[in-house]
């Protein structure tokens, strides 16, 4: 609970504007989220909290805490345990020696007394100094100037891991150079680079945090490990799967996505070439590339045929110029056609999703304000448009991935296939209605000059349109939730009692059938025992 509270606190500023737009009927959209979006500020805060936790519990300096956290991948509990189990070993491994007076900042910028008898040679420039700096080893003195150079070079040229885990310049020495020395001696630019590396390490080494994979987005996501819904929607409006970092792909699982992507890459490269340049031997099914001019083909298997009509050579003679409808499709061709069917639908729904996502972003950024000005309607009353667009984006995404699901659905399972196609078809039809309504009808109502919404009659028309969009949004959401649920449990309803469920779509054409009735609003077929529509019913 605590964490949720923080989450809302953090975002109270950003979301104030949006929250006003949320229509009452849509509040249930914000389910309990199992992740938090972290921005730059939040990451800083988390790092700070973890450091102070460790340094309070173990009463060690900030430098030691930071080194410990880095050593144990930012796991506070683990760091504590290891420390209590064997402090000496841990100290050695992180290069933080000096066990006494730990509480005083035992760091390392120690100015030796100014007496002349204390002159030492810097180990880098070999000059004599009486004012030198040590790392925690207290053995190898270097002058301030050389330290600055050493730290600067490590930040700029040696990569994040080396500078976050910086050791004493003496090659034989393992002593850690703590954050406090770095902060004191690095230039402003290098310091901010150092902290960038540090925060990056926090996100990347932590098991429960990841960066948003979308280009240009600087947010990170903290995920509640153990929760089963991997879908994450970042503040940049892009959704991704926490587990595989691909786009959100419910209802299919990560393995299937990987498989599908692999097939796509394979297919697109291969099939294009095969389609353009090869044909299969009608007898042995091997791919053949035509590398000579004439149509007389002789396959390796010995079969001779006409390149154009596939008939045995000599049979067609002068007949293959005539158009004939194809009767037989070879097996492999059927396979490719099946794949193409699903792939094309997968692709176009994906494109449609991207378009919708852009529309949503544009609407959020400018569109809504413009609509509100043009039609003299307060922005709060137009929030439903955003809701609708968000729904469209999500549905397009789900629909897209159901096509990959369909491809992998075994053809033998006819009942499942039918049920799947029925659910998918219904959901798709609902989505098309909503998409059309928001994309096209919106123009009629809000982009035409005839309407004047200060006038009462016209306002009523607008109110009707509004409630229609809200209704459609809700219905579409219900359809898709059902679809996702059904697919995620592997369409089990059908296996349990196959006859009952398949009957439904079969009998859907006849409204006179007294077992079913069709809802006027959403066209859902309801069983007779219900008096209100089960699809667009109020919750």
């Amino acid at each position, binding site marked *: 609970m605590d964490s949720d509270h923080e989450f809302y606190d953090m975002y109270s500023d950003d979301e104030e504007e949006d929250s006003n737009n949320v229509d009452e009927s849509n509040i249930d959209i914000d389910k309990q989220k199992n992740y938090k979006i972290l921005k730059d500020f939040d990451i800083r805060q988390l790092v700070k909290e973890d450091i102070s936790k460790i340094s309070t519990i173990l009463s060690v300096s900030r430098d030691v805490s930071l080194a410990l956290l880095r050593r144990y991948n930012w796991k506070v509990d683990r760091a504590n345990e290891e420390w209590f189990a064997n402090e000496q070993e841990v100290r050695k491994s992180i290069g933080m020696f000096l066990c006494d007076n730990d509480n005083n900042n035992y760091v390392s910028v120690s100015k030796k007394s100014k007496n002349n008898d204390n002159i030492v040679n810097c180990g*880098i*420039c070999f000059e004599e100094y009486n004012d030198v700096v040590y790392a925690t080893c207290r053995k190898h003195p270097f002058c301030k100037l*050389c330290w600055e150079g050493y730290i600067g070079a490590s930040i700029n040229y040696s990569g994040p891991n080396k500078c976050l885990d910086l050791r004493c*310049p003496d*090659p034989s020495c393992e002593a850690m150079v703590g954050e406090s020395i770095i902060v004191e001696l690095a230039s402003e630019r290098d310091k901010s680079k150092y902290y960038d590396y540090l925060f990056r390490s926090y996100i990347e080494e932590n098991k429960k945090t990841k960066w948003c994979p979308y280009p240009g987005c600087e947010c990170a996501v903290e995920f509640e490990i153990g929760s089963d819904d991997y879908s994450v929607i970042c503040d940049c409006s892009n959704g991704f799967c926490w587990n595989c970092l691909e786009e959100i792909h419910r209802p299919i699982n990560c393995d299937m996505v990987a498989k599908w992507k692999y097939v796509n890459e394979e297919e697109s490269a291969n099939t294009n070439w095969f389609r353009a340049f090869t044909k299969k031997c009608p007898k042995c099914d091997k791919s053949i590339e035509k590398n000579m001019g004439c149509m007389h083909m002789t396959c390796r298997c010995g079969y001779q045929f006409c390149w154009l009509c596939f008939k045995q050579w000599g049979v067609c003679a002068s007949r293959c110029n005539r158009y004939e409808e194809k009767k037989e499709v070879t097996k492999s061709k059927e396979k490719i056609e099946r794949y193409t069917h699903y792939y094309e639908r997968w692709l176009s729904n994906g494109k449609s999703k991207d378009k919708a996502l852009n529309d949503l972003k544009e609407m959020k950024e400018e569109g809504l304000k413009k609509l509100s000005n043009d039609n003299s309607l307060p922005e709060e009353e137009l929030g439903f448009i955003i809701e609708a667009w968000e729904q469209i984006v999500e549905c397009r995404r789900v629909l897209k991935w159901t096509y990959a699901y369909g491809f992998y659905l075994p053809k033998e399972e006819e009942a499942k296939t039918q049920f799947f196609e029925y659910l998918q078809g219904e959901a798709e039809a609902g989505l098309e209605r909503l998409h059309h309504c928001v994309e096209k009808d919106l123009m009629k109502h809000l982009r035409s000059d005839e309407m004047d919404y200060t006038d009462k009659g016209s306002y009523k028309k607008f109110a009707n349109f509004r409630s229609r969009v809200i209704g459609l949004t809700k219905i579409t959401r219900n359809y898709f939730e059902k679809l996702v649920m059904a697919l995620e449990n592997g369409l089990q309803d059908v296996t349990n009692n196959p006859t009952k469920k398949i009957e439904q779509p079969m009998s859907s054409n006849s409204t006179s059938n007294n077992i079913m009735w069709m809802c006027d609003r959403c066209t859902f077929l309801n069983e007779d025992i219900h008096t209100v529509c089960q699809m667009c019913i109020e919750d």
Partner: protein
Amino acid sequence: MQASRARLFKEYKEVQREKTADPDIQLVCDDSNIFKWTALVKGPSETPYDGGVFQLAFSVPEQYPLQPPQVRFLTKIFHPNVHFKTGEICLDILKNAWSPAWTLQSVCRAIIALMAHPEADSPLNCDSGNLLRSGDTRGYQSMARMYTRLAAMPKKG
């Protein structure tokens, strides 16, 4: 610029003072350019390089000693971690494990150590690396020995 010059000057003086300290290494600075050095190192005993004298060329960057010097063999040498044609050396302390506390003198010592302990798993000279990795120590040694005789020893007569 100043810092690297000053440091190199100190190293120069140190080398002059302890000319005889390490009989295996003879480090010489270019007359006109303090950023160019050459060294003559003796091949370590009980290795195929024994008896040879190898010439190294140092090119010191302006950020020295924060950045490592560039070193390569001028004398041809058959060694898994030395490029057979260019003489380039694959040694961690000349790359990411460099420490500003190293000196040109200590780099020479590290190179002598590398000659005695080749790292066959990160080869710049694959032929040499493969001989060692396949366990053909004798083959490696005779090749290395031959090139030492041909290139690193004074010609007889």
